[in-house]
């Protein structure tokens, strides 16, 4: 167990190094520096700015400086938001994104799982089609379609929520639903097919045969096994929630890391883009490890794979 964690952590190092190096090279290849927009400043000032950010050093020195900084957890100054370090921006905006993402994941699990399980238990009945029709709808309505529609209905027509912002608890409802619905739908589909597979197995028939009520069979015996695919999906889901938050944060004007990332891509704020990408990479690797551990805890058979 601990050996596996250690092994995975060691595996993460080359991955992070490659990503860090790749982002560095990509940013170097971009024509034009981050300060080329301000054309009217004198050359001496330009040189001073470049010197301040270390842009006048030879490429390889910039690279080593870059790697050394990252190792210390220093992501360098933002080129666009003067006076701010990238880590400061991340520290301030990431909690917002994390809150949004966790709520969305919670909604996805608490809505998606029961729908999928119920649909499987009502297999080949009309109620199954209704439940899975909802799931299909969620999959075909991406965040950037659903978000504006929700604003149109619940903010403009009904006036229940603010159309944007992130101040009150009510402000969180629409973004969380927008981000979570797709995952709720996907989890419903996974839970349904997992449940269908399990209900065919012998040990479930045994449980029925010894006279257990349907509810007890499902809750105590079937559910745990049926939800393996859902747990396995949590890793990709976290990665998806991260990139989904770009869109949702843009639509609802939420000051999270996603909107900062999109803005910095606009402004070619290279330290900000590189820093954020690296941060996301660490985050995703961490969550994947976490999901693997949950899987091993739930399903003893996966413990001996590695």
């Amino acid at each position, binding site marked *: 167990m601990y050996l596996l964690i250690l092994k995975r952590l060691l595996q993460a190092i080359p991955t992070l190094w490659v990503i860090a190096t790749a982002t560095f090279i990509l*940013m170097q290849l971009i024509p034009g520096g981050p300060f080329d927009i301000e054309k009217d400043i004198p050359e001496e000032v330009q040189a001073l700015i470049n010197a301040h950010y270390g842009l006048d050093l030879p490429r390889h020195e910039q690279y080593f400086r870059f790697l050394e900084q990252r190792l210390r957890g220093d992501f360098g100054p933002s080129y666009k938001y003067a006076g701010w370090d990238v880590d400061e921006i991340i520290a301030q905006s990431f909690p917002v994104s994390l809150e949004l993402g966790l709520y969305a994941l919670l909604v996805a699990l608490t809505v998606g799982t029961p729908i999928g399980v119920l649909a499987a238990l009502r297999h080949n009945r009309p109620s199954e089609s209704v439940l899975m029709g909802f799931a*299909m709808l969620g999959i*075909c309505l991406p965040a950037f379609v659903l978000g*504006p*529609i929700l604003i149109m209905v619940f903010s403009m027509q009904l006036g229940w929520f603010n159309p944007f912002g992130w101040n009150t608890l009510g402000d969180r409802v629409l973004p969380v639903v927008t981000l979570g619905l797709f995952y709720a739908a996907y989890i419903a589909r996974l839970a349904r097919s997992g449940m269908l597979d399990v209900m065919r197995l012998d040990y479930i028939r045994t449980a029925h045969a010894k006279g257990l009520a349907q509810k007890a069979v499902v809750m105590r015996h079937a559910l745990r096994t049926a939800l393996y695919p859902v747990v396995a999906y949590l890793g990709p889901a976290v990665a998806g929630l991260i990139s989904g938050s770009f869109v949702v944060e*843009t639509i609802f004007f939420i000051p999270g890391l996603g909107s900062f990332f999109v803005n910095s891509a606009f402004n070619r704020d290279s330290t900000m883009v590189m820093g954020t990408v690296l941060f996301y990479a660490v985050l995703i690797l961490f969550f994947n490890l976490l999901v693997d551990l949950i899987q091993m805890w739930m399903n003893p058979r996966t413990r001996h794979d590695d």
Partner: protein
Amino acid sequence: MMTRLERELASTDARSLGRDAWEQLCANRMARIGGGLFIGIALLCLIGPFFVPHSHETTQLAYGAQAPSWTHWFGTDELGRDILVRTLIGGRISIGVGFAATMVALLIGVVYGMIAGYYGGRIEAAMMRFVDTLYALPFTIIVILLTVLLGRSILLIFLAIGAVEWLTMARIVRGQTKALRKQTFVDAAIVGGAPTRRILARHILPNLLSPVIVFTTLTIPAVILLESVISFLGLGVQPPTSSWGILINEGAVKLDIYPWMLIFPALFFSLTIFALNFVGDGLRDALDPKSMGES
């Protein structure tokens, strides 16, 4: 007089790759419905604009922001451009990018996966480690990075999308090729002196058909979605060229006053994704023996 083997060979030869794929596609009801819907939308986008007496580019400020009417079925935007035509033209871009980028992904992924799976050993380990590394990040992040690097023209967008979508294809193809490599007919081909390229093209590739078809049909909607997300964020296709992502973005900004600007492009977009997912799911059910009997 033909031997039994010869007859069998002759009968399998008569079915071309394309015909095989087509028959599998038609066999499934879900795939047929989804496919019909999608072909309808695609045809509408392709030839529809010729029949609408408005241009998607000409701005007529006098007719700005009109609600849907008999002259403008879907209404107009603030600059007086007809939303119907803009939606159809945007659909050409979105669907076009979807197919082109999928073809890029298909080509790279199949070749890469076949080589990795066929040769095995260190080559495979190195090749797949590279894929795993890129896999550590969500595709959207990589595509945004690439658009920052490459610029924002349509061609570069679809290259950037193709450059990430091949990863999954490569993984699937590698796994299948590894299994096929152990089959005796491959050994027979090697013993028969066939060059590696011929073995890959004539013996391995045809057997990869089903998983590749299924995955391709599921990749197209994923690519259309990815392009629209990037364009919606303003990092993709740039105006005056439009795609569904851009139209939905424009509509989302004005949704409180001109809701039709959002509704119609969003409807077309969602229907397309819906139809293509139907085709993909139907095909997967038809071709994957594991999921048979369900749904």
